């Protein structure tokens, strides 16, 4: 049953990813991207990462994609598809880079057995399931987030603040009188 869902989600994710690259209008690209993100969230659920699946749908497929949608509609883009694609040497370079990258990645990934790179992978998975039973799906992530990784967590908050200020300053139209 899990395999059937995995294949379903994988096919949708791949189709969406190809659609992002080849579709003619930016809006269509964006909607394909939403399909990809949603099916990747489905795959997260299959790997028992329920909290991240919810975050993926809410933050990624919801908020970030809506931000892209606003910008595409604001700028009124996407009327010249042929000018948007690179041909010739660029596409050759693209396919060479893609082939090499995929070769390297596949070589590393194909000899992974079903319990990951560790010998005791099954035990880790069982311990994770027990922790989820005890603390809940959010608690399992929150506990290390607020103890071992609390500095990184606070820095993330700072990063978001800086990003908000930077986005407002950059997107603000410049006034004529020069007073910023």
């Amino acid at each position: 049953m899990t395999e059937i869902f995995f294949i379903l989600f994988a096919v949708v994710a791949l189709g969406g990813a190809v659609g992002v690259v080849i579709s003619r209008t930016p809006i269509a690209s964006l909607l394909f991207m939403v399909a990809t993100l949603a099916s990747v969230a489905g795959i997260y659920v299959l790997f028992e990462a329920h909290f991240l699946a919810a975050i993926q749908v809410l933050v990624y497929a919801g908020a970030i994609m809506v931000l892209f949608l606003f910008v595409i509609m604001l700028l009124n883009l996407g009327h010249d598809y042929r000018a948007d694609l690179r041909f010739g040497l660029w596409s050759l370079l693209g396919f060479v880079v893609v082939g090499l990258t995929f070769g390297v990645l596949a070589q590393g990934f194909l000899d992974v057995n079903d319990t990951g790179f560790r010998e005791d992978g099954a035990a880790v998975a069982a311990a994770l399931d027990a922790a989820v039973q005890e603390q809940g799906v959010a608690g399992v992530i929150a506990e290390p987030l607020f103890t071992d990784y609390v500095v990184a967590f606070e820095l993330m908050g700072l990063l978001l603040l800086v990003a908000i200020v930077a986005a407002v300053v950059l997107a603000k139209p410049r006034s004529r009188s020069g007073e910023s």
Partner: protein
Amino acid sequence: MLSHALLLSAVLFVIGTLGVIIRRNAIIIFLCIELQLNAVNLAFVALSRYTGIEGQLFVFFVMTVAAAEAAVGLAIIISIFRHYKTVDVDKFNLLKW
């Protein structure tokens, strides 16, 4: 299923790379970068099942950085569009020689 998920993440990553190389629209390039980030997230989540919860934490951090990057990047695209009236990356030639 683990190796299949990793393979899927590799394929998503290279599709994103291809999009970054062959498209000229800055917003599509940006979407393809998000696709690459997502492929890496998928690999993190798939491996975190068998190596511990830290993988999921890092996905959390990657998502935060992606959100910040999207906000700042789109603001930069808007401000470039105001200047050049296009988002074709080949037309941004101030720093080209």
